[in-house]
């Protein structure tokens, strides 16, 4: 699975993941509180362009993100215009779009592995209530390895169905689930054998 990360060497790329996520949280709250007028909205959107520049992501990437949100923009702006008037609609839409664009900057400048490390550190305080941060981060990585396998199992079922010339409909999912769960058992055994997690106590 390929992440949404865009490799680079900008200041934002070099900044620690935890700091970026914390900054995002602060900025999201600030935007919600401060962006109340169309002018403030325009300023906020301009600021997102600066953020994209700081990540060396370029205007094209910014535009692509905005384009991906076109329906959101149309619907939020439209409904707020009807109920709250044009000024509120402009400010409200800018607010939502700003936060989503800032989140995209963090996503695009932070590699998956750094995010996982940051996740592990962020979860450290939860160790006292019985959450093992390493284990959580591990399951996340395990899932990343598992996704393509699930895809290949699905591919195998589809091939078998075609080769046998039979129709299964949704029943194919049962076959997939059986294969996937048996695969899970094999992975579970490998986890145990590699000394990563305990086996069942029968």
């Amino acid at each position, binding site marked *: 699975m390929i992440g949404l990360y865009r490799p680079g060497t900008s200041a934002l790329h070099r900044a620690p993941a935890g700091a970026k996520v914390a900054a995002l949280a602060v900025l999201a709250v600030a935007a919600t509180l401060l962006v109340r007028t169309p002018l403030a909205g325009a300023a906020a959107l301009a600021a997102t362009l600066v953020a994209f520049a700081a990540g060396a992501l370029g205007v094209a990437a910014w535009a692509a993100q905005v384009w991906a949100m076109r329906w959101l923009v149309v619907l939020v702006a439209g409904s707020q215009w009807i109920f709250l008037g044009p000024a509120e609609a402009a400010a409200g839409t800018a607010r939502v779009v700003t936060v989503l664009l800032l989140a995209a900057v963090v996503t695009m400048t932070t590699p998956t592995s750094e995010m996982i490390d940051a996740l592990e550190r962020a979860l450290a305080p939860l160790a006292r209530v019985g959450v093992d941060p390493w284990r959580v981060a591990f399951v996340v990585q395990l899932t990343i390895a598992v996704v393509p396998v699930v895809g290949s199992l699905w591919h195998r079922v589809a*091939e*078998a169905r075609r*080769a*046998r*010339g039979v129709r*299964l409909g949704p*029943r194919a999912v049962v076959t997939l689930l059986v*294969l996937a769960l048996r695969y899970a058992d094999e992975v579970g055994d490998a986890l145990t054998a590699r000394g990563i997690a305990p086996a069942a106590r029968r």
Partner: protein
Amino acid sequence: MIEAHGLGVEIDGATILADVTVALAEPRVAVIGRNGSGKSTFARTLNGLVRPTAGRVEVDGVDVGRAPKRARERVGFLFTQPDAQILMPTPAEDLALSARAAGVPRGEVASRVAAQLEAFGLAAHANQPAYSLSGGQKQLLALAAVLLGAPRILVADEPTTLLDLHNARRIGDLLLSGAGARQVVLVTHDLDLAARCDVALRFEKGRLAAVGAPDEIIAAYRAEAA
């Protein structure tokens, strides 16, 4: 009869198979070669599971790329992993699925299924959950299902790899003895089994490296691996 003309397969820009031209009329065809040499890909083009990106394949005169459905009626396929091929919860249901697809009238399905279970020594397991069958029993079931369709050509991709000596011999015998009634293409790393065929193909890096008498082809392959 299998004919490939300048057959090539590219996936995501990578050449998996290139320039395979061969005509096979022999009843038993062995396909050998190293991991990743393109054997499975070649086998899969024979029933349209993989589409050629260059050239074409014909089975009994049917162009597989143009008429994959008609080709598939003629070509049965047996996978290495029987698990993936068994699509229904029990052997009886699984065979019924194939029987219906093969056009057996509704009223006769049950008796055809019973007869096939009997013929493959699976009668006692008719309604046992399929996952709990042994490896050999699963491969027998998969073969029984394929043969219900009475294919003119049977392609088997390493069908004996997971089996013990006894079961491998049994499946091997069933596959090769049926030849005559049908043509069999057998992809295998088991060189003793390959030696029992009438002609052997050896793939290397996506190309057909050699075609000929199994003994010679196998001897050359062994020599190289050593």
